[in-house]
């Protein structure tokens, strides 16, 4: 059709100049807008909320910068990034399959308790590298096994995995506490905590920094997951299942097996996050400690459009937000739960921007037909017309 018009108009009108931006550039711009605008809007809305609470939003966000980036604080952010990134890759993998593993908190804590329980003995008995590899694998296995009940229920009976993973998560949090008070309790202290890993036996740092090598493990996991999802048949099967389970069944994909496998893989990555955090940063675990990293990571996994590589900058941003947020909240005399508000706002704005972007792509207006009519034609006139 276009060639027809071009042929007819050819002799008369000069061919129209293509816009300077290529399609590729437009697409990149589109992705950037869709990813960054929600964050900016959420920060603005959060600022308004801070004003309403009588705090100065500029000071608050300035403190996030000082506490999260400036003067070596970026290393603290990078340390925090290791578990964040591992959890994020685990979520990317399972969300791509359109399965909702929301039990990451319990999986993380249970794996952390097991690592903290065995590590102090193990690092003294075997060479550190062997100990680290074993502990990482054990943590991954524990967390993966904890997903097994939801996985099997989902695979065989189609039970809603959101519910089962959450319930298993609540159980795991209590179980971790029992483990810490019971078999893993450090007998030299009355406090309910495990023995502390000797400082020189913890994960070594990357030379020249304070950042432990857990971050490298996390980057490796990102690459592996990205490769799995984009370059292997397994990844393709996973995404087909996520996009359309019925089509996947028609292709002859063994859905139950794939569901269980993706659950196990996701749990394994969450377990690695726990091992990295305990072996690299904390060195022990105490009852009642539940950082709930995953809750705040989720929006950034979505903002990265479930792309393992794109997760990295978002998680880096959130690490800064979270590290600096601790200082900022403390300075502003607010509870750190304020971050939950910011994260919830980011999620809300993200869905809205996503919707607007999709409408624009389809060439439609930003509003649904019903909403548009409601806004354009006053109710009275509509009633009169009918």
């Amino acid at each position, binding site marked *: 059709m276009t060639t027809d018009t071009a042929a007819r108009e050819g002799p008369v009108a000069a061919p129209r100049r293509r816009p300077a931006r290529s399609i590729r550039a437009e697409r990149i711009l589109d992705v950037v807008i869709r990813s960054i605008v929600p964050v900016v809007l959420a920060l603005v809305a959060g600022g308004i909320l801070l004003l309403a609470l009588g705090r100065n939003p500029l000071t608050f966000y300035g403190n996030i910068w000082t506490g999260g980036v400036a003067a070596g604080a970026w290393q603290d952010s990078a340390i925090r990034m290791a578990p964040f990134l591992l959890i994020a890759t685990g979520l990317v993998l399972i969300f791509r399959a359109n399965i909702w593993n929301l039990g990451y908190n319990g999986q993380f804590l249970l794996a952390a308790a097991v690592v903290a329980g065995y590590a102090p003995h193990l690092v003294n008995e075997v060479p550190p590298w062997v100990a680290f590899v074993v502990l990482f694998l054990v943590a991954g296995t524990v967390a993966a096994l904890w997903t097994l009940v939801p996985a099997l229920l989902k695979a065989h009976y189609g039970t809603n995995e959101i519910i089962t993973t959450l319930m298993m998560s609540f159980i795991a949090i*209590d179980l971790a506490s029992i483990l810490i008070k019971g078999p893993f309790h450090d007998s030299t202290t009355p406090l309910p905590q495990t023995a502390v890993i000797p400082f020189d036996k913890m994960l070594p740092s990357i030379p020249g920094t304070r950042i432990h090598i857990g971050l490298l493990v996390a980057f490796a996991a990102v690459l592996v997951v990205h490769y799995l999802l984009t370059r292997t048949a397994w990844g393709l099967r996973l995404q087909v299942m996520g996009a359309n389970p019925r089509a996947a069944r028609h292709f002859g994909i063994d859905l139950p097996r794939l569901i269980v496998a993706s659950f196990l893989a996701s749990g394994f990555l969450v377990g690695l996050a726990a091992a990295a955090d305990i072996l690299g940063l904390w060195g022990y675990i105490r009852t009642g400690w539940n950082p709930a990293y995953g809750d705040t990571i*989720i929006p950034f996994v979505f903002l990265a459009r479930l792309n393992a590589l794109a997760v990295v900058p978002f998680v880096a941003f959130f690490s800064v937000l979270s590290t600096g947020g601790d200082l900022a909240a403390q300075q502003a005399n607010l509870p750190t*739960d304020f*971050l939950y508000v910011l994260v919830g*706002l980011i999620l809300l704005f993200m869905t809205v921007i996503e919707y607007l972007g999709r409408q624009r792509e389809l060439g439609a207006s930003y509003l649904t037909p*019903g909403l548009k009519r409601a806004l354009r034609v006053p109710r009275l006139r509509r009633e009169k017309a009918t």
Partner: protein
Amino acid sequence: MILASQVWTQIFWTSAISGGLLAGVPLMFTALGESISERAGVLNIGLEGMMLAGAYCGFLGAYYLDTQWLGYLTGIAAGMLASTIMVVLCVWLGLDQIVVGIAITLGGEGITSVLYQTRFSSAQPRLGNVSPNSIPLLDRVPVLGKGINGEFPLFSQPLVVYLGLAFAVLLGWIFRSTNIGLNLRAAGEKPEALDAAGVSVVATRSYAVLATGALAGLGGAYLSIAVTGGFQPFLTQGQGFMAIVIAMLARGRPVAVVIFSLMFGIALSLSTLLGIAGINLAPEVVNMIPFAAIILALILFARRAYLPPALALPYVRGAR
């Protein structure tokens, strides 16, 4: 078992039933709400956030306005306000219900915690006891009615509990034999059919989600006003999610919702119960029991849990 004799005492059973009722009523309200929106095809993962909003605002209302009734009303209003987010984004615009639900839960947790701690951080005020209303004749029933030494009387509950039970029966009737109930079910089972019948799917679902928000808010308000007598951050502790499970297991039948809620209420109040029976268990074990019970119930009845086919799918007219 040495303890067997202590378990079979009257005080154990009366306190089991009334303790279960006390802890189960917030679950009951919230799960009734969830069963409305699940029937209409909206999966409300934001229930936890709506409950917390209701709990905080209900506490505020009861604290500043000095009557529990205004507290319940502000709780309902807060729950409805939180659910309007869901109405606009999920029902009108057709955005992902799970993502928005997570956002509401996170936002609700964050904002109630921040507001409570900035306003009441040092004081942590408590509300007065809620005066119960006795049912005239039943409160003279020997054990259940009077309780042991005046404690745990079953037929002497806050008025809102009776209203809630009556509402559950009413809701069952609405689902079963009114046009509203038929519309709600059609919106969840086959929205196209409802649309073809000339009833707006979007409007039906909007009212359903608003009703859910109101009930979740009421459940939260009851939790903070009558059960704990005060608010604290993260007060609900996963009860919103338990309510979703109850609605799923009850397959949208309100009377079943009531029964399941009371059972989970008993599981939630188990620590006091075991104390009465003289059994000492670690608090962690006791905390685990309700969740373990749910997992067990799901494993046993997994094949019987029923969800409407159009659940969590936005309705777009003409889309296939």
